[in-house]
Every structure is written in structure tokens, then in C-alpha cells.
């Protein structure tokens, strides 16, 4: 185990800003991108349902 306390873990030996700045951006991008892809899929399905209900 590398860390003696939670504070030490978040401090990352003084590099907290750089390490967590990297991981936070990765988390944000990899959370938003799948949501956008799923929304696009749902919108495409909805367009088909609307069209299918038309004559």
C-alpha cells in the first residue's frame, strides 16, 4: 500500500492537481461520450417510431 491516509492519497505527493486533473478529464469525456451516443441511438429509434405510425 502506497498511502498512509486519504489526504496523502489525494495529495499525490504534491502532484494532485496534475494527476487528478488528468483523471477528472478522462472521467468526464468517457462519461459524456457514451451518453451522447446513446441519445443519438434513441433519437434515431424515435424518428423511426414516429415514421412507422404514419401511413
Amino acid at each position: 500500500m502506497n498511502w498512509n491516509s486519504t489526504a496523502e492519497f489525494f495529495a499525490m505527493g504534491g502532484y494532485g492537481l496534475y494527476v487528478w486533473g488528468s483523471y477528472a478529464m478522462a472521467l468526464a469525456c468517457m462519461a459524456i461520450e457514451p451518453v451522447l451516443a446513446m441519445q443519438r441511438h434513441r433519437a434515431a429509434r424515435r424518428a423511426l417510431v414516429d415514421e412507422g405510425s404514419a401511413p
Partner: protein
Amino acid sequence: MSSSSFRFFTFAAPARFYGLAGALIPWCWAAFAGLAAAGLYIGFFVAPTDATQGESYRIIFIHVPAAWMSMLLYLVMAFWAAIGWAFNARLASMTARAIAPTGAMFTFLALWTGALWGKPTWGTWWVWDARLTSELILLFLYAGFLSLVSAIDDPRRADRAGALLAIVGSINVPIIYFSVKWWNTLHQGATISVSAAPKMASTMLTAMLLMTLAFWAYAFAVVFTRTRAIVLERDRHASWTRESARPASTSAAAGIRT
């Protein structure tokens, strides 16, 4: 050839892909969650502190996998775009389009994490050296591909124009990869190579490879989702998509998973 068999050959591949990809997506997400959890655990709690860089090196566990994915996805995108062009295969062109945003996202992540690693290590966020500049050009190539295919209304013409851009742009990928050998750059050399033993602790390497596999699973899940969306958008007037979008009872009969 009768018109009904023509329709079969035209739409069978996207229809079959749609169902198969839909069934695979949850497994891709499960693999991503498991691999990322294992990779992050080893990366933060098992891998030791680096002797020269301290804790800042832990950025490597997302920086290198993101950079690898950015290059790999570009080549995969160019490959499917070329197949779609050469063999008039619509699903291949749709796959190429679905890969581009994910590739661009990983390119951006590689640049972002690189900047945050460069500041404490080199004392600068950015430097116009060969590795960083060629990776930035990769981001522009993804952006160029996406704007080009969305700017042309006829989907098949857009696919062909995009394919040309993707194929020509793929020359940039070996330039990125070998840039640290061909030029004097601030960026360090290849992290692992086939010809030499790894220059890092095996736990560090394990964490990095697990994160790479996790990013692969992520890319499959997102690209499958986006390809399914593009298939529906593109095949709006094909009979099978209308079946799949009907209320539950009929879509279950059609065998298409939502």
C-alpha cells in the same frame, strides 16, 4: 437478380450487425468496468512510486492507453473507410464514421493528460516538438474527417470523400509513432517495445496494459452504440428498421433487440 434479393443483399449486413452489436454492448461495458477497476487498483495501490518522477507518473495509466487508442482507432477508421469505398460496403463506411468521434476523444485525452504531465516534468504545458505536434495534427485529421462527412449531403459521396481524407491522413500515424526516434524531442521514447525488455516495474506495466484493454472495451461499446444509431438514421426507409422500431410485441417477433 430480382429486386427482393437485391434488397436482401443491400440491407442484410446492417440488419444483422444491428442485432449482434446490441447484444454485445452490455458485455463490452462489463469488461470495461472490470478491467478499469483492476487497472486503477493496481495503478494507484500496488504500483510503487517512481524514483525520478514521484507520483506524477501515475498519469501514464491513462496517457499511454489514450495515445495508443488515438492512433489505433485512426488506422481502424481509415481501414473501414477504405473497405467501404473499395467494395461499396455501406456498413464499413458507417463504422468508420462511428469510430471518428471516439478516436478524436482519445486524441484530446492524450494531449490533455500529456500537458498535465509535461508541466511538472518538463516545466511546460506544451512544446512544438515532433511528437506533440503530430498528435495535434491527428486531432485535426479526426475533426477534418467529421466535418467533411457531415458537410456533404449525399451519404455515399460523403463516405467516399471521408475515405480519401482518412487514407491520406493515415501517413501521420507512423510519423507520430516514430517521431521520438526520428527527431530529437522532449517526449520520452516508446514506453514498451518488442525489441527490448520493459523499462518499468512489472506492476506499472500490468496497470497500463489493463487500462489499455479497458479503453478497448470502452471503444467497442461506444462505437457499436454509435454505429447502431447511424444504421437506423441511414436505413430509415429499409423495411427491417421499421419492424425493429415498432412497439414491443412486434419488435420481439422481428428478433431485433432494443
